[in-house]
């Protein structure tokens, strides 16, 4: 009998210790929170009801550790402010002016409205939209108006006053197809950029989601660190009490103090990490950075974003149908293919129709015979340069060089080609060679993947019209209408031909880039799928590990209080338990992030799917219905 008793004594001691701890439990709570413990409301309590907690057996055994354990971290938000004496520690004040609670949905919506990357992408989209209308504008007729006045003195005996006024409307009829092709290619490009904006939105949704989850994780880790500090305080208190009772040494008190300081330091580090996570989220949202964002829900439990068990092939099918960047690259490929034809258009002749009204007048005083020596009026009508803007140069004879138009531009540099002028009426056409007139306004056709030096015929459209020297006194009004055909092959067409070959190469490159994107998408989906499955497995692993650690901690606490182990052993158990909590919190967050990444990579990421989840079956059903 005695032997049996002796054999059972340790067990009896442990049981007694458990009973003692159960009795001591409220005292623990008092130690942690002098103002009285604040408990979490039980799950399912109705709103507005007084929130209560009835300690269970396990909670009684482990102090209030269970309140903060993984079940609560997963399913119950902790009243964070009640954990600490906030007035003395102010865990989140730091540099921020104030704190603002924010839900995941609010953060995502705010990001979609204000994120700078999205705004920048949107402006690019607007730019390409404007370029599309720019190219559509080439179909409209060109208008030009010139007026010039001149005064001449001939042989010191005759004074003349001349004026020329001219309005020309030119209608492009055929330009080698490049106006149409420019518009088509640009239409592909603007659609591509619209999808690029959508892709930017999807990227930002994922980025915001990740940063929000990081913030949630950091808050959870902060709570764990707070718990460590509380436990360290408990231990110190216990040791101090034991020391007073003569059952502990001063060394043990010092050890407990060191542990408390270590935990305080870790808490401070975690506070900094939490604030940094908040700053990262604010930056992503383009929010004021002096506001400290706090997740309004720290729940980690129900983190399933992709419901059901979708197979990889189904996910790949969804990805190929929904990834906007795949469509984007497809459109850029089509745009690049049109550029080849634009290059070819330079080899074609151009045809245009024109309507010109001209009014000239010449007055003189002196000898009429001197008028035959009058400097002729030259009007260089070099317009209708659709690709490069309108080049118009006016000049008055040899006596003056008068450039009235400002739009003198050329993609190929100096405008030195010969063109003809139209005069008021009859006579021999005037040659109006603007030799050496440098026209380099720098107005370059805005095009990103546009062909190089794709020009449209620089026809004046006025060749062959009746022109006259301005040496007949009087006023002449003329209205001319005509058709102009111009076919020029600079450098025997070699430039245009080689340019077309170069554009074909670019087109092939675009096709390869689209293929690369396709491979990339499949690669991403397969990798995400594997990762999501692996992270789910990690949750199970960390959960099992935590169960063990929890039990180890419970035993360590019981043994310590029974005098059967050293404080170092308890600290080790505590540290392992806290690490386990952290690992599980990280696993839960990683799982959510992995699913969000998969959602993004199959092209199904949105505010709705990130907040309410996504089901492939439901999606297919909705699609069939629609």
């Amino acid at each position, binding site marked *: *009998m005695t032997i049996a008793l002796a054999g059972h004594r340790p067990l009896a001691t442990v049981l007694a210790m458990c009973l*003692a701890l159960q009795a001591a*439990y409220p005292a623990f709570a008092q130690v942690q929170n002098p103002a009285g413990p*604040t408990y979490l409301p039980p799950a399912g309590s109705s709103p507005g009801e007084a*929130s209560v907690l009835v300690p269970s057996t396990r909670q009684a055994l482990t102090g209030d550790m269970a309140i903060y354990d993984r079940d609560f971290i997963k399913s119950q938000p902790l*009243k964070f402010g009640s954990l600490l004496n906030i007035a003395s520690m102010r865990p989140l004040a730091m540099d921020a002016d104030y704190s603002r609670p924010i839900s995941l949905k609010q953060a995502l919506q705010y990001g979609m409205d204000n994120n700078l990357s999205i705004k920048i992408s949107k402006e690019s989209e607007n730019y390409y939209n404007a370029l599309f209308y720019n190219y559509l504008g080439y179909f409209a007729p060109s208008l030009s108006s010139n007026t010039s006045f001149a005064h001449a003195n001939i042989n010191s005996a005759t004074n003349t006053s001349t004026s020329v006024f001219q309005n020309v409307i030119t209608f492009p009829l055929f330009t080698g197809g490049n106006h149409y092709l420019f518009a088509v290619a640009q239409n592909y490009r603007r659609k591509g950029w619209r999808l690029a904006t959508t892709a930017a939105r999807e990227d930002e949704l994922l980025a915001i989601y990740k940063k929000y989850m990081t913030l949630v994780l950091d808050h959870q880790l902060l709570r764990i660190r707070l718990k460590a500090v509380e436990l360290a305080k408990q231990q110190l208190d216990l040791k101090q009490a034991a020391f007073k009772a003569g059952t502990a040494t001063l060394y043990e008190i010092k050890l407990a103090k060191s542990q408390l300081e270590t935990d305080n330091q870790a808490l401070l580090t975690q506070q900094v990490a939490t604030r940094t996570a908040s700053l990262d989220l604010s930056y992503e949202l383009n929010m004021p950075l002096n*506001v400290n964002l706090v997740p309004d829900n720290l729940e980690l439990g129900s983190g399933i974003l992709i419901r059901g068990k979708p197979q990889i092939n189904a996910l790949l099918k969804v990805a190929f149908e929904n990834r906007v960047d795949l469509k984007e690259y497809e459109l850029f490929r089509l745009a690049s293919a049109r550029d080849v034809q634009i290059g070819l258009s330079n080899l074609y002749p151009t045809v245009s129709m024109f309507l010109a009204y001209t009014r000239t007048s010449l007055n003189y005083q002196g000898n009429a015979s001197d008028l035959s020596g009058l400097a002729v009026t030259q009007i260089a009508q070099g317009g209708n340069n659709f690709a490069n803007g309108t080049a118009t140069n006016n000049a008055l004879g040899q006596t003056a060089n008068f450039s009235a138009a400002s739009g003198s531009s050329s993609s190929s540099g100096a405008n030195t080609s010969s063109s003809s002028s139209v005069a008021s009426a009859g006579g021999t056409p005037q040659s109006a060679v603007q030799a050496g007139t440098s026209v380099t306004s720098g107005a370059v056709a805005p095009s990103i993947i546009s062909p190089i030096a794709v020009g449209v015929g620089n026809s004046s459209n006025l060749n062959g019209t009746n022109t006259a020297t301005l040496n007949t006194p009087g006023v002449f009004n003329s209205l001319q209408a005509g058709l102009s055909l111009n076919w020029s092959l600079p450098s025997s067409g070699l430039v245009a031909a080689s340019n077309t070959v170069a554009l074909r190469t670019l087109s092939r490159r675009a096709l390869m880039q689209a293929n690369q994107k396709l491979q990339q998408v499949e690669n991403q989906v397969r990798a995400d799928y594997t990762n999501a499955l692996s992270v789910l497995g990690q949750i199970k692993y960390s959960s099992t590990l935590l169960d063990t650690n929890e039990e180890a901690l419970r035993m360590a606490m019981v043994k310590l209080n*029974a005098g059967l182990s050293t404080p170092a052993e308890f600290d080790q158990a505590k540290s392992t338990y806290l690490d386990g909590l952290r690992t599980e919190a990280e696993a839960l967050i990683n799982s959510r992030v992995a699913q969000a990444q998969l959602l993004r990579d199959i092209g199904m990421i949105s505010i709705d799917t990130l907040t309410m989840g996504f089901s492939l079956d439901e999606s297919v059903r909705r699609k069939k219905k629609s």
Partner: protein
Amino acid sequence: MSQCGVMVSLAALLASFYILHPAASAADPLSNENVTIDDSAINAIIEQPQQQQAPQIVPKLQDQLAKIPVSFAPGESKLANHKAIMCTVTNNTDHAVVVYGEKAVLVTPHADARAASQAEIDTIGQPPTHGMRLIASSVGSVALAATTVGMYQTLKGKRKEHKPVLQRYEYDEERRINEAEAFGQRLLYPGESTTGKLYFAVGESLANAWFLCPVAYFHEEANKAVVRVQFKLPEAAR
């Protein structure tokens, strides 16, 4: 056998006393190693263990409103047809509290006015983004640029170079500043105080106005209440 068990249990209970006593000791046990045992606290626990384990009730926020003082000061209004009021709230409760400034209501003898929403505040100083206002704005700028041959915009840009740094960044920076100033929705941990700007579309005097603002415990929105305060602004601000 039974005597041994009783002895062991008594020893354990004695050990529990050692555990208990720091709980009832000084508020800051870290500062004093020479802790004295507070017998009354221990006795209280021993005599009334059930009472200590009784369910803890989170106080209703409605009963804590006196601990959430609110004060006002006139503010500079940036929103057209709105009065700006600087509102200061302090949380003297033991819980983190969320103040929903964006849902505040001003009750005057004549009408009620809701606080301007974040979306309204975000429009301050922003260019029009759609509709007739956008067309009018675009036509106006083009006309101005055409008539001044671009000089207006050139000089405006030049002038901006000499402004303070943050004013050179225009719309987004202005929105961020306005948003940070606005009261919106704020979280106050125990002991914290915060000041923010509220905009109300009221024209008349605020002399007899009442300010109503919802508040709730953080993470417990169901446990909410409404702060009701009468305006006490300087005469000039009314």
